[in-house]
């Protein structure tokens, strides 16, 4: 009884399993045999899709398929990679190294370049780099669609660091750059792009997973923090991109006080906005996933959903809410109800370009370096000469000092009577002084130049004698002194007869 019932239930369960299995198999077979676009399922579950497969020059896109997923690299989301270029030949090799190292599937990346107003061989370097990239053996390393646009806008200012970053140049410069970006963005974006990534070429250090790192936040517009390295003498590191900020009361007040076409630029003392900058929010130990709401953003590395640009947000080339270019792009996107976010603790590193001030300082430092080398060389030489050419008699002087200054009271009291001990005075010295006095008197009497010359000679002689006799100077020279010791001469000068 027991055995039969267990047998029956087993039969029951196996039959159920087999029935279920065959039903599933039939469903699968039906799904497989009938292609996914079959009208039966299509009309029931999804909107109508026209078929233009064999019709020339007609394209149909359902924009719902291109809204951008947070795991776009797994879903085949195409990225439009926009790079504005101007005189960028020297940075391009580094840029292409970064490109090639990127982990986002390369075939999903469409590259678009705008080459404008370049005086160097930007175009040539770009083309050769692109050809290298697209002829790589590993086909998965090659990129998708590549478009290069050329358009000159006329340069109003130079391209050196200080030209570009001077205060007066900012407004017109930003508007011009905004135009360039818009020309690139508007012609390059296709209906099938899900994301748009704006990148400057002069980024030095950037994670290879930059796309995934930004994309998985699933925000409409997102920027990393941008810093730059500095030389040691400037403090090693510095926040670079001050265009990413949150609006402040001060900023709004300033905006209200300016005229319609004015452009507020960050990081200049002329416009104190007191805004919290993304760059200064960095905590090196902070969580890289942390987000911060922004109102204005910088253009070094922007990842945005393509729909943001498609629905009309762009880099205003006019003063939009007193801003232009990327900062105004942030403001415009906010006005269009998109979220704009920055990552304070996730940093990419811009290259360091010295400013004119820095260049001056560096030139000065190089000069200083040279001067120091020269100085030590000369000092070594002098030290050698000094050691071999001169005797250090300071120790002798210390011991002889008490004898020589026997009669001199070293206390400075002028009232104190000086007692002179003439007892062992030198006879020769007395004679010399007597001669001197006699000559001087004669010169006074004659009152002519000849006598003066004679007196001079007499003084010389007397001094030489005195020097020989006394050797009373504090540092005696071993070699014969070419000139008389100074004190004796001064005595003679006091006797200048012509003045009497």
């Amino acid at each position, binding site marked *: 009884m027991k055995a039969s019932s267990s047998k029956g239930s087993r039969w029951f369960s196996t039959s159920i399993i087999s029935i279920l299995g065959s039903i599933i198999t039939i469903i699968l077979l039906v799904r497989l045999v009938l292609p996914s676009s079959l009208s039966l399922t299509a009309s029931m579950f999804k909107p109508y899709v026209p078929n233009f497969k064999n019709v020339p020059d007609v394209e*149909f896109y359902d924009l719902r398929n291109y809204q951008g997923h947070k795991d776009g690299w797994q879903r*085949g989301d195409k990225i439009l990679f926009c790079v504005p270029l101007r005189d960028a030949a020297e940075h391009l090799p580094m840029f292409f190294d970064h490109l090639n190292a990127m982990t986002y599937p390369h075939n999903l990346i469409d590259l678009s370049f705008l080459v404008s107003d370049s005086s160097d061989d930007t175009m040539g370097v770009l083309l050769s780099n692109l050809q290298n990239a697209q002829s790589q053996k590993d086909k998965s390393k090659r990129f998708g669609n590549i478009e290069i646009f050329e358009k000159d806008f006329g340069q109003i200012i130079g391209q050196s660091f200080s030209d570009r970053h001077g205060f007066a140049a900012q407004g017109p410069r930003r508007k011009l750059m905004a135009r360039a970006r818009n020309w690139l963005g508007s012609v390059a974006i296709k209906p099938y792009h899900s994301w748009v990534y704006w990148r400057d070429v002069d980024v030095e*250090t950037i994670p290879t*997973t930059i796309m995934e790192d930004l994309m998985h936040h699933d925000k409409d517009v997102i920027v990393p923090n941008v810093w730059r390295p500095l030389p040691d003498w400037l403090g090693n590191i510095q926040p670079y991109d001050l265009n990413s900020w949150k609006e402040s009361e001060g900023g709004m007040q300033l905006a209200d006080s300016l005229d319609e076409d004015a452009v507020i630029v960050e990081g200049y003392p002329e416009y104190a906005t007191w805004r919290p900058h993304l760059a200064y929010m960095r905590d090196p130990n902070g969580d890289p996933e942390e987000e911060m709401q922004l109102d204005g953003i910088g253009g070094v590395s922007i990842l945005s959903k393509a729909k943001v640009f498609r629905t009309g947000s762009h880099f205003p080339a*006019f003063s939009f809410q007193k801003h232009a270019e990327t900062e105004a792009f942030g403001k415009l996107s906010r006005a269009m109800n998109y979220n704009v976010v920055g990552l304070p603790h996730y940093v990419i590193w811009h290259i360091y370009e010295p400013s004119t001030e820095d260049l001056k300082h560096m030139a000065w430092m190089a000069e200083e370096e040279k001067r120091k080398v020269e100085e030590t060389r000369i000092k070594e030489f002098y030290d050698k000469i000094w050691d071999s050419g001169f005797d250090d008699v300071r120790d002798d002087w210390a011991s002889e000092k008490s004898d020589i200054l026997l009669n001199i009271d070293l206390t400075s009291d002028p009232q104190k009577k000086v007692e002179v001990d003439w007892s062992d005075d030198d006879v020769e010295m007395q004679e010399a002084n007597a001669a001197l006095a006699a000559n001087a008197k004669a010169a006074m009497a004659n009152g002519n130049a000849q006598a003066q010359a004679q007196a001079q000679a007499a003084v010389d002689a007397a001094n030489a004698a005195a020097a020989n006799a006394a050797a009373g100077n504090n540092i005696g020279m071993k070699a014969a002194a070419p000139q008389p010791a100074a004190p004796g001469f001064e005595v003679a000068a006091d006797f200048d007869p012509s003045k009497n």
Partner: protein
Amino acid sequence: MGSLSLLSYKVRKNPVVTVLLPLLALLSIYMLVFRTDDSILGIQRLDIANHKWAHEAEGTWYFPFTSRFKMPRYSYKSQHNWLFNDHVDDIIPEGHIAHYDLNKLHARADAAIDKERVLILTPLQSFDQRYWDNIMQLSYPRELIELGFIIPRTKTGEDALKQLEAAVKRVQSDKKNQRFAKVTILKQDSQSFDKLQEKERHALSVQKERRAAMALARNELLFSTIGPHTSWVLWLDADIVETPVNLIQDMTAHDKAVLAANVFQRYHDNDKNEDAIRPYDFNNWQESDIGRELASKMQPDEIIVEGYAEIATYRPLMAHFHNANNPVDEEMMLDGVGGGCTLVKAEVHRDGAMFPNFPFYHLIETEGFAKMAKRLNYEVFGLPNYLVYHKEEFNN
């Protein structure tokens, strides 16, 4: 005091405490006085004693983020489900390296002779055969015309798409010289622009919402289709059923950055019992002092729309400047334009002039576009005597 003496009494009575108390005292004296190392503060074991700055821990100043945190490990396995998937892939052209010199692109008076490409853009709520026939009768060379349509995600949109598909297939399968250079059809995903019926869509309260949705659709259409060859963009509404045959040549000949034709409507005048025309599009206007004053008093998120008694701006409307006796090519400066039939140089759009879906100087959509073009230093003109016709509305 009593409790204290009680305590001392208890201490004396309890031998354990009498032994422990001195011991404890000795220990604390030793701890406080004789142990000289820092452990009394207890900081050796804490982070602060061997604290490292981030750049010391990382061994460099230039790191993207500290290695204390790991970014998520990304999987590169495709999420594409080949079995249960109703998604139909669009046909995307193959990749290549292309090179375009936009310096050579121009938009000048002799557009047809200079072989300049014109992009005709139409937000298509419903397909009207007369609209299509009108497009087909334009005399501008078809190999220089690109068409762009955006279709809302609604039932009527689906019907329009089917009709459009048939029409496009017919012309593009025709002889080569009869084909358009390119036709792009988009299906909208943003807020649909035709949700409201003819009757209520002109109500003032829904204007802002409706026109914001329309602006989004126009932008999506524009920035998806404008290409490196485009010289001119002609905005032509799906309701425009009659235009002169030489529409594009006539309008490009004026060589203006933004140029609007006057949109009229044919109707049957029941009183006089004859066919007549009346102005239709009131979005082409010049700014008035009253309009400016109104705007200055408005809240930042309010908009001014034309043609409503609630907002009397007294702006000179181009629709009212029509005079059949004046020359057709008469021009008139404008500050706001409509989207009925407006020709725009592609560079205006490329510079960034788009259709705001938010109040831009209290203007929205096409009128906001005109303002933005002006902010970009372009001039906006209209042709009061050059008429195109909107289809009739039978809702009264």
